[in-house]
């Protein structure tokens, strides 16, 4: 019997993380969930086992603790076929403007940590000659906006990291996917004003990630409408963009 494929979700307790783990388990993958609070992930692991009769592993992972990354990867029972990083922190832009520690946490959570961990997995996958790495970035990284440029710039860095990694890794049989979900109705966005037609539910993101892995897509805008919106926003001349309260 061929052994089942496996996927690990970093940031497994987020709404998108849960939905993504479900999508992969449903497709027959054994999954591992990694997060800061392993006990809090237990119910999700039980859910996946009961629903899809797959193996589910739980691992402690803190994206801010970069010193632990080597040990984390070495401690996994096997190198997964698919590694998905969903970790991120929206933070509060206004606070980040004056609180350097908060700004740094946002930057590290969205750029430094995710990039380093995927880079590390990339090395192992390249050595094996196969694997898929998925980074959930954001449309916010496509252009810095007055209202969230700390977060946006970190996502921009992450997007650039992923595209470079993709270019390099593709020669070694490893595929890298960049996901830009746009507005998703989740814990993170609760209470925010989201634009209805541009907003999707978490399971839509999970399914899009699964499809992108299968189809070897490079960059996924989960709702196609965002590709157009961001194209327009990206091409606005700086002189005009600056004037928009956006």
């Amino acid at each position, binding site marked *: 019997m061929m052994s089942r494929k496996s996927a690990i979700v970093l940031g497994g307790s987020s709404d998108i993380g849960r939905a993504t783990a479900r999508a992969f388990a*449903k497709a027959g993958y054994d999954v591992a969930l990694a997060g800061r609070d392993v006990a809090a992930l237990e119910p*999700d692991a*039980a*859910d996946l086992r*009961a*629903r*899809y*009769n797959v193996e589910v592993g739980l691992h402690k992972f803190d994206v801010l603790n970069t010193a632990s990354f080597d040990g984390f990867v070495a401690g996994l029972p096997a190198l997964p076929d698919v590694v998905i990083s969903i970790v991120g922190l929206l933070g509060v832009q206004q606070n980040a403007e004056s609180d350097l520690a908060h700004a740094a946490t946002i930057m590290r959570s969205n750029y430094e940590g995710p990039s380093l961990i995927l880079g590390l997995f990339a090395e192992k996958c390249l050595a094996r000659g196969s694997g898929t790495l998925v980074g959930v970035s954001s449309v916010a990284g496509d252009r810095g906006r007055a209202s969230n440029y700390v977060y946006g710039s970190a996502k921009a860095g992450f997007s650039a990291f992923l595209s470079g990694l993709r270019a390099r890794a593709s020669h070694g049989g490893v595929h890298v996917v960049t996901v830009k979900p746009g507005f998703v109705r989740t*814990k993170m966005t*609760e209470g925010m004003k989201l634009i209805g037609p541009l907003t999707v539910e978490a399971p839509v993101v999970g399914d899009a990630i699964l499809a992108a892995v299968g189809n070897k897509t490079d960059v996924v805008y989960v709702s196609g409408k965002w590709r157009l919106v961001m194209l327009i926003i990206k091409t606005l001349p700086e002189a005009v963009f600056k004037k928009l309260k956006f």
Partner: protein
Amino acid sequence: MTLVSGWGRFPVVDSDVLRPRSFAAVGEAVAAGTIARGNGRAYGDAAIGTVRTVTMTGFDRVRSFDPATGRIRLEAGVLLADLIETFGPRGFLPFVVPGTRFVSIGGAVAADVHGKNHHCEGGFGRYVDSILLRTGQGEVIEASREQNSDAFFATIGGMGLTGIILEATMRLRTVETGWIRERVICASDLDAAMRALDAGDSATYSVAWIDCVARGKDLGRSLIYLGEHAGKDELTEGAAAFPVGKDSGLGVPVDLPAMTLNRYSIRAFNEMYYRMGARRAGGSRVVSLYPYFFPLDSIADWNRIYGRRGFLQHQCVIPEAGARDVLGEILERVARRGDASFLAVLKKLGQGDGILSFPLPGYTLALDFPVRGDILNFLDEIDRLVVAAGGRLYLAKDARQSRATFAAGYPALQRFNAIRKSLDPAGNIRSKLSQRLFDEV
């Protein structure tokens, strides 16, 4: 504050809506005037708190499943749609499903929903073994037929008024396929329809779609759909054992002007519907469970067909004796008015299980009416016929019945109130529905 309404979009009420993420947060959310809300498929005001509405759909985990027994433990926010899609392909389905799959486990327990099999297999609550309940008093209790049995039977059909259901353990039925062998019977009038339903007593599933604009000798003409679970050997070559629940992609993007539904469009639709059904009558065919159980689900937001002012559903049950005359009288009045839904649903029910469960042995008739004109008075008159016949109205569909109609229909109300009081002495758990019908003023 948010404007909240049920599926019928009437009434629309201001409420503080919370979406807790942990059971602890559910507990903290309970304050005076709180009710749980599932997926908002109750038509009227059952899932709107007088002060606060606690949405449970975030709790969508399966806790455990035993394929040897079909026993499953679920969080209350899991939707039946999810359950069917996940466990159907593994050979398991809920014993009871209502006419839409977009209801939550909590909502299905709280309304003790009935399906097309109530006449022989009972309601949703019959297959629930235990529930984890957060009472208005602040305790979390496990209730079953043996343990806290008063709380158990008050919660089944109790419209959320005993507390917030956090989890439920229930049994799933095993099926060979996700297909239904359907047989259509054509009934030319009400007597024929009732006879056909009686004859269908031994069928697992049965329901009649009545043309409620037909009058005179055609009064009550209908198509009766009988159904059985199909075995693998009944499927056409190459068909998957479990069909996919496709969305038709149809949807109602805006509120249609109330004009769209008028006696002419309805009559034309019904004529076509009846004739198409009549052509299939007699024979049997195998259909996917989705169109069989959930005919309306493929049209998203169909409630907008009735326009911005919303609509009312009137679902009564009439005890078997004397049902023929009362149903005839109701249908006659409805046909004369001419603004009811295209199709009314008639089916037989058996005994309900919960203290406030709607079903009782007899016939249930469900009709939709747009909110306009003198509809409230008209329905009050229909209610008088229902009460006189010893019948009652379904709380999950109600938005307007009077206290007197309610009290007459539910003689176990005193007992229910006593249990409710013991679980929630301060009276924290309240909905717009309970305020309208139960609570002391």
